[in-house]
């Protein structure tokens, strides 16, 4: 069973100070820590688990700048066999990314393509399902469980309200992977060091035969901090003072 996993390198913003670029079109990125998109980590792990069961190869692909190599190395350390980086546009226009990925994947032999449900940074949640349509393959999104039965995958999709649906998808297919589908495995430093010796194939857009960029579907005009409508009343002081106020509030509201 050959599996292709699409992965993205993203900036970690949950705990970071966010600053906006002068042109107002994006956030400043220099001071941010980058990592493998959380959803993609689960997708790579799932591919490796399937490979262990059914044999075959796992190939990871990313479109991105040179620095993206570090997330590919991580994927190799997690058990992927091959890694490809496509030197591509920094734009995260979902249709464009999906079209480039489709061009790179076309003609390769695979049974399954996995992507994350969404990228942590701009959260389009679009690339996997768009890619399936371009390649003319069936898809299932927000997948929380996969069972392979000959030429079919029985998958569970997560719906709202704690309910899931069970469906059957013919292979080859594209599945977008939801967090929690498997137990992440600790990736040791020595595994990463070993992976650094493995080769990452680097290709340009021309090499994969991608030419017509066409107009972008979506462009960012401006980014801004969300309006602070109703904001919490921030409790101030030393931890003891803050906790003092907090216990009063809890007592009162507990009723």
């Amino acid at each position, binding site marked *: 069973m050959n599996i292709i996993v699409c992965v993205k390198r993203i900036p970690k913003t949950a705990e970071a100070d966010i600053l906006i670029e002068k042109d107002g079109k994006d956030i400043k990125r220099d001071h941010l820590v980058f990592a493998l998109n959380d959803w993609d980590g689960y997708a790579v792990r799932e591919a490796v688990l399937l490979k262990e069961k059914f044999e075959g190869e796992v190939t990871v692909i990313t479109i991105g700048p040179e620095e993206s190599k570090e997330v590919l190395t991580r994927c190799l350390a997690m058990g992927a066999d091959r890694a490809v980086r496509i030197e591509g546009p920094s734009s995260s226009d979902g249709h464009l990314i999906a079209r480039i990925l489709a061009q790179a994947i076309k003609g390769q032999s695979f049974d399954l393509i996995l992507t994350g449900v969404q990228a942590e940074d701009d959260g389009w*949640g679009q690339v996997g399902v768009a890619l399936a*349509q371009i390649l003319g393959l069936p898809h299932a999104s927000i997948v929380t469980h996969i069972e392979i039965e000959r030429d079919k995958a029985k998958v569970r999709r997560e*719906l709202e309200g704690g309910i899931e649906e069970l469906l059957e998808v*013919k292979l080859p297919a594209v599945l977008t992977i939801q967090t929690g589908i498997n137990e992440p495995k600790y990736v040791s430093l020595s595994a990463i060091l070993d992976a650094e010796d493995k080769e990452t194939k680097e290709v340009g857009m021309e090499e994969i035969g991608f030419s017509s960029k066409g107009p972008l579907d979506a462009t960012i005009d401006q980014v801004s*901090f969300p309006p602070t409508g109703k*904001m919490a009343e921030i409790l101030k002081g030393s931890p003891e003072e803050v906790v003092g106020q*907090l216990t009063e509030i809890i007592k009162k509201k507990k009723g």
Partner: protein
Amino acid sequence: MNEIFILVEHRQGQIRDLTYEMLGLGENLANQQGISFTAILLGHDVKNFAEDLATRVPKVLVVEDENLKNFNSILYQKALSSLISKHQPCLLLMGHSAFGMDLAPSLSVEMDFPLATDCIGLLFEGGRLKATRSIYGGKVNANISLRESKEYIATIRPGIFSPKMPGEKKGGIVMEASPLQGAVDLKKFIEYIEAPITGEDITQAEILISVGQGIGGPEHIPLFEELAKNLGGTISCSRPVVDRNWLPKERQVGISGKTVKPKIYIAVGISGAFQHVTAMRGSDTIIAINKDPRAPIFGVADYGIVDDFQNVIPVLKEKIKG
């Protein structure tokens, strides 16, 4: 420009709330453009849905087919692309939900319409669709422009727009012939799987102390368990805490977990993603403890503490005990 289509989302015999929110948004956009808005209902035995919708919209287009009973993106896509080709709406709205996320991207590729996902604001400007999206975990809003096109697709974040209420006037119900020819082999719906009812029922708790990825690791869970005990409360959590097996699934608050409305909700190390917030914003009093002053959770909380939880929680635990 003629009309705006809104795809009705229903499951297991119920129209989902997000549908009404999209109708509210669709009406506003339609009024601004001086055009009409239409509910698109795909399903089987959905007469009662059509009646309900007709009290809220000028027109309901219905495709009845037993193969549309449960959502299946391939069949929905076929039915929709045929309706779109016939009526040529300028915009199709659907939910940024498990259904919409499975359908909008493939439909937009097939029709070659620009797509904006997870929108929290939409407007037409100079004939082009512009959208506001919330990115970087809700810390930044982005205003985007879509390329020029006669037709657009947008998926809408739940819980943002006011729902369209029933009115006096009744809209028309128009039946359309189904373009489907039976089921498809490529993708088959089999069944719904309900979550097993086990363990603690967090929806019954009066005080929830809810922990997120920001608590750093499972080694801190006992601290929060003790605090919960001293407070007479119950522990709940955000999704990553469950994904990483720090707490069991039944403790998860969010769209894919439980919706809770306790008297007091204390969120610790939770950033405030919409998938979490939608399911707890109905709590009477919300307290957030987070070291990042820009964390979106402070936008829904009543009281906030900007600090490392390790400076606050141990002190709180002792104080409550005393």
